[in-house]
């Protein structure tokens, strides 16, 4: 127990350094037998991430052992069923660490039918390693891997040309593969492409630079992984905070818990709540470890606001000056993952940030051939196919383009019958043809100089939106009653386009009127939307079928208005 103090201070120092490490997530993709398992095994082994007893367990389990040489691939092979089939069929996650960084590897198989797995692994990765067998050159699978990596927004792609030992460490072979791959990759959006010749089996250029390839002047694979600059890949410019939970442990505290999707948030910052459009300021950013001066992605924090605004799960806090698109119609790329193909007649559920909404795919613009990048017309998408579609959602989503924001630009689609996750979606834009009132409102709120209170003073009463489940006939009868009692009124009759009706109704109410919207159950979506957008004190929801006559309905409305203190000035 006489531990020399130098060693202890050594371990303390080690710990302090370890606790400062960064995290890099990467995925490996290659076709069968390109040497992916060998490469991963080599990284784990050489970085001393492989524990002794796991090694000995392998020696016991080895079936087709390669004489002498250690079979690194066995280190990474997981499940029993797969071991029996002899192939890897799902995404496996592995971990290793060097003094500089901690690494999470998403190990995804390269078979044709497993686009879904690669997309899954790529969704959270900073970097992708595409393996190429030097003897085979660039195959269609390699193109597919590069395409999916770029589709999922991976900024850094490393092309590892493997089995260089089998082509006499030839510079020429390497160069040929580089130029072929580069010309294909030029069509893709890959900001950082790095080529490296390796032998996973013998360890050339994996951890240290290989003496067998003096012509290569780049860094070893591990060195590249340790130093590639990833901090600025994240979006720090547009703040997005999807609310996961409202925390209200006592009367004094009301906070909104969530994980920063992008941007930086500080106490005092103005924020707008979507979809309501209400604005407030950040009072404080609470954490278990005390209040913080700023929050940035991917911090999980709790935001408290200055005002008692209504906020719930699925809402999003955004800067009033740079809101995302608020829309019920999006253009998106889908990677189809369901066993049953996409059905345009069916309803799905979209999970986007912390919201789940009903959605339907309006049409498929085209399908992308993952090998040639060709666009083809399509009437359905099946398992592992990628297509661009237009989607209508029942309530608005708050989206950014996936290229700008990996969190607010992504969603999954769920089949409400089987509950299976059937697609991964990336927002490419919002359909320009679909005007959404919420967007207009958000923009108008910026320019409007007349406070609602001033309008109210001039008109003599506060504005209200009366949502009447009934026909135009009834609506006008109710209006006439209210008008006679001194209210300034207006009726919006049902429109074929629900969003136009909603826009008119919101505008009239914003102008200060008692607006009566005559809409039946077909406009349930608009009703929900109006309710979400309006202050509850200014929204009256009335089912006209409950009343015997228009007079009775009118009386009920007047009572509701009076109950909220909304009465005409001179009556």
């Amino acid at each position, binding site marked *: *127990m006489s531990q020399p103090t130098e060693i202890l201070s050594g371990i303390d120092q080690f710990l302090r350094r370890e606790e*400062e490490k960064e995290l890099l997530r990467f995925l490996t993709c290659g076709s069968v037998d390109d040497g992916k398992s060998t490469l991963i095994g080599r990284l784990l082994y050489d970085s001393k991430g492989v524990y002794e007893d796991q090694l000995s367990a392998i020696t016991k389990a080895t079936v087709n052992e390669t004489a002498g040489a250690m079979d690194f691939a066995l280190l990474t092979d997981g499940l029993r069923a797969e071991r029996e089939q002899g192939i890897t069929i799902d*995404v496996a996650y592995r971990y290793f660490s060097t003094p500089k960084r901690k690494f999470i590897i998403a190990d995804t198989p390269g078979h044709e039918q497993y686009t879904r797995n690669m997309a899954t692994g790529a969704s959270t990765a900073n970097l992708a390693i595409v393996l190429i067998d030097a003897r085979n050159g660039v195959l269609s699978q390699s193109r597919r891997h590069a395409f999916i990596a770029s589709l999922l927004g991976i900024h850094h792609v490393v092309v590892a040309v493997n089995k260089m030992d089998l082509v006499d460490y030839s510079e020429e072979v390497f160069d040929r593969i580089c130029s072929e791959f580069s010309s294909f990759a030029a069509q893709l959006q890959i900001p950082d492409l790095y080529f490296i010749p390796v032998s996973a089996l013998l360890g050339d250029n994996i951890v240290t630079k290989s003496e067998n390839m003096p012509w290569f002047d780049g860094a070893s694979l591990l060195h590249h992984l340790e130093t590639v600059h990833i901090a600025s890949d994240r979006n720090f410019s547009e703040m997005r905070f999807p609310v996961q939970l409202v925390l209200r442990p006592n009367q004094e505290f009301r906070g909104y818990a969530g994980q920063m999707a992008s941007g930086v948030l500080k106490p005092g910052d103005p924020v707008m709540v979507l979809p309501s459009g209400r604005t407030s300021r950040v009072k404080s950013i609470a954490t278990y470890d005390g209040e913080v001066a700023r929050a940035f992605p991917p911090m999980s924090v709790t935001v408290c606001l200055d005002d008692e605004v209504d906020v719930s799960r699925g809402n999003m806090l955004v800067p009033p000056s740079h809101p995302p698109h608020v829309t019920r119609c999006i253009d998106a790329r889908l990677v189809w993952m369901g066993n049953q193909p996409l059905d345009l007649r069916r309803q799905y559920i979209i999970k986007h940030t912390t919201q789940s909404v009903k959605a339907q795919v309006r049409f498929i613009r085209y399908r992308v051939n993952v090998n040639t990048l060709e666009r083809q017309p399509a009437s359905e998408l099946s398992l592992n196919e990628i297509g661009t579609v237009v989607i209508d959602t029942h309530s608005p989503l708050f989206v950014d383009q996936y290229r700008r924001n990996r969190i607010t630009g992504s969603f999954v689609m769920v089949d409400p019958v089987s509950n299976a996750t059937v697609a991964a979606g990336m927002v490419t834009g919002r359909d320009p043809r679909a005007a959404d009132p919420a967007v207009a409102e958000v923009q108008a709120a910026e320019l409007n100089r007349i406070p609602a209170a001033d309008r109210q003073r001039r008109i003599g009463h506060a504005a209200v939106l009366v949502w009447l489940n009934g026909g135009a006939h009834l609506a006008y009868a109710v209006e006439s009653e209210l008008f006679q009692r001194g209210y300034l009124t207006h009726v919006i009759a049902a429109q074929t386009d629900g969003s136009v009706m909603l826009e008119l109704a919101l505008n009239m109410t914003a102008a200060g009127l008692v607006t009566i919207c005559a809409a039946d159950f077909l406009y349930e979506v608009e009703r929900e939307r109006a309710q979400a957008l309006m202050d509850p004190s200014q929204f009256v929801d009335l089912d006209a079928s409950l009343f015997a006559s228009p007079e009775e309905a009118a009386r009920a409305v007047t009572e509701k208005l009076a109950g909220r203190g909304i009465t005409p000035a001179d009556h």
Partner: protein
Amino acid sequence: MDGKATDNRMTESLTLTHLRMLEAESIHILREVVAEFQRPVMLYSIGKDSSVMVRLAQKAFYPGRIPFPLLHVDTTYKFREMIEFRDRFCAEIGAKLIVHTNRAAIEAGANPWDLGTQKCCGFLKTRALLDALAEGEFDAAIGGARRDEEKSRAKERVYSFRDPHGQWDPKNQRPEIWNLYNSRLNPGESIRVFPLSNWTELDVWQYIHLENIPIVPLYFAKEREMVVRRSSLIPVERDIPLLPGERKELVMCRMRSLGCSPCTGAIRSDADTLPKIIEEMMLFRRSERENRVIDFDQEGSMEIKKREGYF
């Protein structure tokens, strides 16, 4: 001034360390579970991973309390020090604790010496856990398993679905994309949620060190009464059957993982502080399960147990 360089410095300062990234991810997962399930429960094993998980839950819902109960499946073969720690710890943080034991099996005399570890675990852990979940009508059980613990766990999802019998079908799991977890359950299905999926053993120890998280004293080296059996040290907690020639002796040792006392081996060690434990772990590089007799009973045994409903 080089604009790009300033940019890099700015973003560098907005970077979290790997432990804070893992923490943020786990908190996100815990909050999703509370938002989307009716009756979540956290499985609390009293071990170091559970301690970390509880701290993450405290952080996730601060300043509120942990909004779900902790469930401990007590085989009655746990170390005394574990039970003491459990009761003190839960009282201190104000967590609701549920303790469940398969009474029928205990009364029928279930023990690892007669049944063998596999069968004993089947009754006292797997069966007991499934019963407790059914009894509490819990729709989501949060567990502390990590993917790096064992090969068969490398493909485990964060949301892991179990059929109505609590069993796991490796071929029928949902893809997990970005941080969007599909929480919709089919009738009779339940899920296990693993918020520590991406943590390694070293991460867990470092986090305990960084955060000063209380753990059971059994993890720290001290002189304890042991039976030395081949290379294993077996703790003398109760009357374990001795083989010919064996006797109890005082050995400076500690536990690397905590299970039931008859099936958890100790290791000879001087590591009586966290830094020493971490240093020892870095030096020995032995997977933490080496000393749990159970995983070596059968090749791939963990996977078999998982299919049956154990974690």
